[in-house]
Structure formats: structure tokens, C-alpha cells
């Protein structure tokens, strides 16, 4: 029972397990819900999905399974007779009458397909979720006949959209496939422990010594508990050539966020210049001067660059070399300033190691970093972390 549904969820990348499926079946057996598709949707989500960032995937999988909608991509012309047949099956006489008022089924289907084509042309890689505009006859989910809102006024407009079709959780799905445990394990090396904070742990050796000094009268000694004291400043390259590696970078970022108490992150594009930013959506309105990073974060912060360092050599070496704006000072000046301030810094490069030699800019950056550039593999990260934890890391060569 529901085996197909289960595999449909797995196909959409949800890591649902068999025990969770059994939970759902148990709930159905106990008749927690009965013959109510919406309640079933909530129940299935409750038992099978454990993270709100996965809700959107679940919504899509649910729609695919229960609407019988094939996940066809792009210019897939929907067979007209398929549409027509199911439309006729789905619509009541009353609906059909309303439909006539809009110009008849043929008109509507034609308009629909035109609209579909238009939409695909506009968004490369557009998918089946057609527009959300309130005035379109195709409503929030125009693809499926059930979603066509016929007549905008009246209370039936609300019914047209199923809960899972609202896809309320789309915004939460920004993280994609994350939570890579191996990545976390690699980063765990970076969790250097230092004893800070208040006395909390019993210091047994010290207690025995103190007690024997007092001739057996108990004298307890405490020592501070271990706290994670590593501070990390992450600088991420976004946009342009980095698009191919966004997935790996997100993984690293998600793993990093849960590992450290102090983790600050900023974005840059290709090379660090006088400004960095924290939110990609508002990158042009909210910038942080790079100078401020140097002033704000102590030299004990571990600085990690993540970027492919694949760019024109002039983007590093010349004033005005940036592809986006006029930079007064070349990128390498800013790189050196950062490297001079922070004792420990590494560069993680998602480009495969064997490709490095083909890009002159990687060579330049590698040299700027004093050889501390590592590929973004498990080994590379381990190597980078060992370097970061070294007491006196080599300072960048000044040339």
C-alpha cells in the first residue's frame, strides 16, 4: 500500500525511510484521517517529512503522484485530446456553461497552450507551475484541468488551488540537498576546543590533591568545561563561473553553520575588492566595506575563501579589472590586506585539482595565498583545516 507513492517521494529526493512509511500506514489503520485527501496530505507530510525545507519537494511529489501529472519538461506539447478528455470528465455541467461564456473549450485550450509556450520561452528551464497571476484563467496551477479557475468571482476561486499546489514552502527550499555528514565530519576537525567559561567540570586530580592536603577533608576543585572557541570568517564567491559549483558550496556552508559558534559569512564576486556583501538579494544596496572586516574581526578568526578563482588575470592584478564595477585598487591588494590581518587563511576551490593548471588566475591566487589553496574534496578540506589550525601559518608572500 502506498508503495508507489513512497517511491515517488524518493524519486523527488526526499530521504523518507521505511519506518516512516510504516508510521503513516499505522496512522491510516488507526483512522486518524479517513477519506479526506487534504487531511491525508497533512498526515503524510507529518509522518514522512522532517524538515520544512523539504516541504516544497513533498508538495511537488504529492502533486505528481495524486494528480497523475507527468513531470514533462519544457516544450512538451500536452496532447490536446488528453486535456480535452479529462476536462470534460472533470467539469460539471455548470462549469461547462461558464466555460462557454469564456469563449468555449477550444478557445481556452488554445489560449492555454499559447500561454504555456510563451512562458517557456521567457524562463529558460521553466517548469510546470504556470504563473500565479490572479487574473489569468489558468490560476495558480493552470497545468491541470482541475486548476483552471473558471470565472474569477465567486467562492469557488479558492477551491481551485489545492493546498499542496500553493507551494507555500518554496522559499524554504533554498538549501537544496544538504546535510552532508561526511562534510560535517571533516569540519569537525576544525572544532578546536579551548577551555573558556565558568567552572563546571569536576577536576578529579586537583580534588584528590587538595583533599589530601586537608587531611582527607573533602575539597572539591572545578575546571571550566570545554567550549568550541573556533571563530570562522567565510568569504564565498558567487555568480558567474561559480554557478556550476553552487551545490557543493551550499553543502559546505550548511555543514559549517551547524558546527561553529562564531561563523560569519560574506559574499564576493570572483575576487575580493573594497566591498563584500551578506545578502545576495540586496547585494547592491547593502555592502560592507572590506576594510570593516579587517577592523571588526580579530586576527584569531580563521579566514576561509570559497571560490573557483577562475577569472581573467586582470581581475586580480589591475585597478579597474573587476567585471562589475570600477575598482580603484587591484584585487590582489585587498587579498594581501586580508591575509596580512588574519593569521590563518585558506582558499577552498571547487574546481577539480586537475583543471587548475589550465587557469592562469588559479595560479596567481594560489601564489597570493602562499600555497594554501585546497580542492573542495574531503581530503582537501582536511588538509585546509590542518593548515588553519597550525599555530603560525605561513604569511602570504609579499611581492
Amino acid at each position, binding site marked *: 500500500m502506498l508503495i508507489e507513492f513512497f517511491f515517488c517521494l524518493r524519486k523527488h529526493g526526499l530521504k523518507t525511510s521505511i519506518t516512516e512509511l510504516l508510521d503513516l500506514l499505522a496512522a491510516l489503520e488507526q483512522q486518524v484521517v479517513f477519506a479526506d485527501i487534504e487531511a491525508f496530505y497533512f498526515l503524510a507530510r507529518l509522518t514522512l*517529512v522532517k524538515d520544512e525545507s523539504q516541504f516544497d519537494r513533498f508538495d511537488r511529489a504529492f502533486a505528481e503522484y495524486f494528480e497523475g501529472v507527468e513531470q514533462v519538461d519544457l516544450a512538451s506539447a500536452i496532447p490536446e485530446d488528453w486535456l480535452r478528455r479529462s476536462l470534460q470528465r472533470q467539469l460539471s455541467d455548470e462549469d461547462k456553461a461558464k466555460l462557454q461564456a469564456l469563449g468555449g473549450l477550444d478557445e481556452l485550450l488554445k489560449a492555454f497552450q499559447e500561454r504555456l509556450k510563451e512562458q517557456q520561452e521567457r524562463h529558460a528551464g521553466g517548469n510546470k507551475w504556470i504563473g500565479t497571476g490572479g487574473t489569468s484563467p489558468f490560476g495558480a496551477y493552470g497545468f491541470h484541468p482541475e486548476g483552471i479557475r473558471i470565472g474569477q468571482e465567486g467562492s469557488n476561486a479558492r477551491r481551485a488551488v489545492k493546498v499542496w499546489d500553493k507551494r507555500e514552502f518554496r522559499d524554504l527550499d533554498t538549501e537544496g540537498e544538504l546535510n552532508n555528514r561526511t562534510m560535517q565530519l571533516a569540519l569537525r576537525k576544525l572544532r578546536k576546543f579551548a577551555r573558556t567559561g565558568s567552572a563546571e567540570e569536576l577536576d578529579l586530580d586537583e580534588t584528590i590533591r587538595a583533599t589530601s592536603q586537608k587531611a582527607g577533608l573533602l575539597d572539591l576543585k572545578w575546571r571550566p568545561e570545554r567550549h568550541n572557541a573556533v571563530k570562522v570568517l567565510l568569504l564565498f564567491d558567487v555568480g558567474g563561473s561559480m554557478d556550476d559549483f553552487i551545490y557543493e558550496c551550499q553543502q559546505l556552508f550548511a555543514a559549517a553553520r551547524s558546527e561553529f559558534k562564531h561563523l560569519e559569512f560574506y559574499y564576493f564576486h570572483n575576487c575580493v575588492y573594497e566591498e563584500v556583501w551578506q545578502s545576495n538579494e540586496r547585494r547592491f544596496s547593502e555592502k560592507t566595506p572590506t576594510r570593516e572586516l579587517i577592523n571588526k574581526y580579530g586576527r584569531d578568526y580563521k579566514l576561509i575563501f570559497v571560490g573557483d578563482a577562475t577569472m581573467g588575470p586582470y581581475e586580480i592584478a589591475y585597478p579597474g579589472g573587476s567585471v562589475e564595477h570600477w575598482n580603484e585598487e587591484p584585487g590582489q591588494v585587498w587579498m594581501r590586506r586580508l591575509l596580512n590581518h588574519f593569521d590563518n587563511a585558506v582558499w577552498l576551490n571547487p574546481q577539480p585539482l586537475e583543471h587548475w593548471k589550465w587557469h592562469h588566475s588559479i595560479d596567481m591566487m594560489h601564489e597570493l595565498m602562499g600555497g594554501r589553496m585546497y580542492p573542495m574534496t574531503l581530503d582537501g578540506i582536511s588538509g585546509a583545516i590542518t593548515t588553519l589550525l597550525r599555530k603560525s601559518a605561513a604569511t602570504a608572500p609579499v611581492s
Partner: protein
Amino acid sequence: MQFSSTSSYIVADELALAVNAAVTLEKPLLLKGEPGTGKTKLAEELAASLGVPLLRWQIKSTTKAQQGLYEYDAVSRLRDSQLGSDKVHDISNYIKPGKLWQAFTAAQRPVLLIDEIDKADIEFPNDLLHELDQMEFHVYETGEQITAQQRPIVVITSNNEKELPDAFLRRCFFHYINFPDAATLSDIVRVHYPDIQRELLQTALEVFFDVRKLPNLKKKPSTSELIDWLKLLLVEDIGPQQLRDSKGLMPMFGALLKNEQDVQLVEKLAFMARRRES
């Protein structure tokens, strides 16, 4: 047993379904959502509506899983031994049951609230896997085996500060409390302030949702802030007209905006809006 909205707490249908499923199947229910959307309140209301005791285990960054089971006070036993107290001979005098122990041995099936589980160490949920699954644990000092008489209703809340391990999540039901829409919100407000003027409520909600829509707020006001704010409006007897006419910041903004930068942001935007009008 069907849990539904009470006279003091409005619960969305899907949340009610989640609670009922968790109660029926005896699974822990993990609740996530913005701060102030009533996660903790749910456990209180659930206990009240079932007429059973609520055991609340508030998690802090220093909380250990073991503290939920029991604590062995070795220090006072050592002290007592030096003072020659008779209590020393029975080790169980020094074992203090934790919240889980209390929940397992309660006479009535209680509601156990594990509040803000994400505040604890990253390994904390893993240490509770067996206890929450089998509802039993072993006391090493006395050799006792504590088994739940009846499985308590477990409600766990998280503010998403840390990711919880997969193995733990698999054992829970999960519900994300979405921020309520305007209609539900006005229901909630009416539960708290039955005789609030319709017009005032309307205007206040408009202002409230406008504030929530602002980009870049450090802390978006949530339901509990809205309720505090309305209380102040009522106490100060501010009418809807006054609310609408207020230039710059809304009256009693301190209840809605908890951050100095947010206050400045709203002030600036209000100023700009006013300039555009004139």
C-alpha cells in the same frame, strides 16, 4: 480524544491533526516555527484540554541528556559520608529523578514538553534516541530499570538553531507551524481580547502585516508580539483613527519592534512615505 481549538487557544486544522496523530500513535511530535507562533503554548493547552499534568523540560546550552533521566549527587553523598550520616548507605537517597523519569512513572499519562531542543549540544538528541523510542532506561547506580507505565505524550519544540540528526527525526512526527494568515490571526486576537473593536483590530492587523512585510527586519513581530501590542493599545485607549493618523512610528511601537535598528528602519520608511504623499 480529539484536540481542537479551545476558548483560549486557536489551533489550525493541520496542527490539530498533527497533535491527534501523535497522541494516537504515541510518537513524539516535533514542532518548529518562528518564535512566538505558540509552540510552547500548544503543549500547555494540550495538557489542559486533556486534563493531565504538564512536565516541562527547558533545554539550555549546558543541558545534558542524562539530566532528563536522573542525576546522581555524588558530592553530597561524599560530604554526608564525612559527617557520618546514615543516609549514605542507601545510594538511592542521592538519585534525583529527571523529567523523563517523572513522565515515565506518572500515575496519569502526562504531556512532556521538551522545550527548545536545538539549544543543546549537537549530540543531545542522539543521546535520547533509545529513551524516547523504547520509553525505558537503566539506572546504573542502583541497577533499576525504569520503564514507562504508559507512554507520555511528548512535544518537542525547536527554533532551528541547529540541525537535528536524521536518526532522531525519523522517530518523531514533524510539524512546521506556519505564520497564521490574517483571518486566523484575528480569531486568535478575539480569543484574547473578546471586546476589541472590529475597526481597531482591522487597522492594527493592517499595520502589523505591513511591518512584517518590510524587508531586512532583524526580528519580525509574531503573534505574541501582536497580542502584547493590542493590549497596550487597549490600555492606552488608542482608537483606530489615531492609529491610522499616526505619523512616523505607530503608537506603542516598543511592543512590536524589539530592535533599535528595526525601529530606525520603520521610522525612515514612514518618513519617506509621508514625503511622497505631500
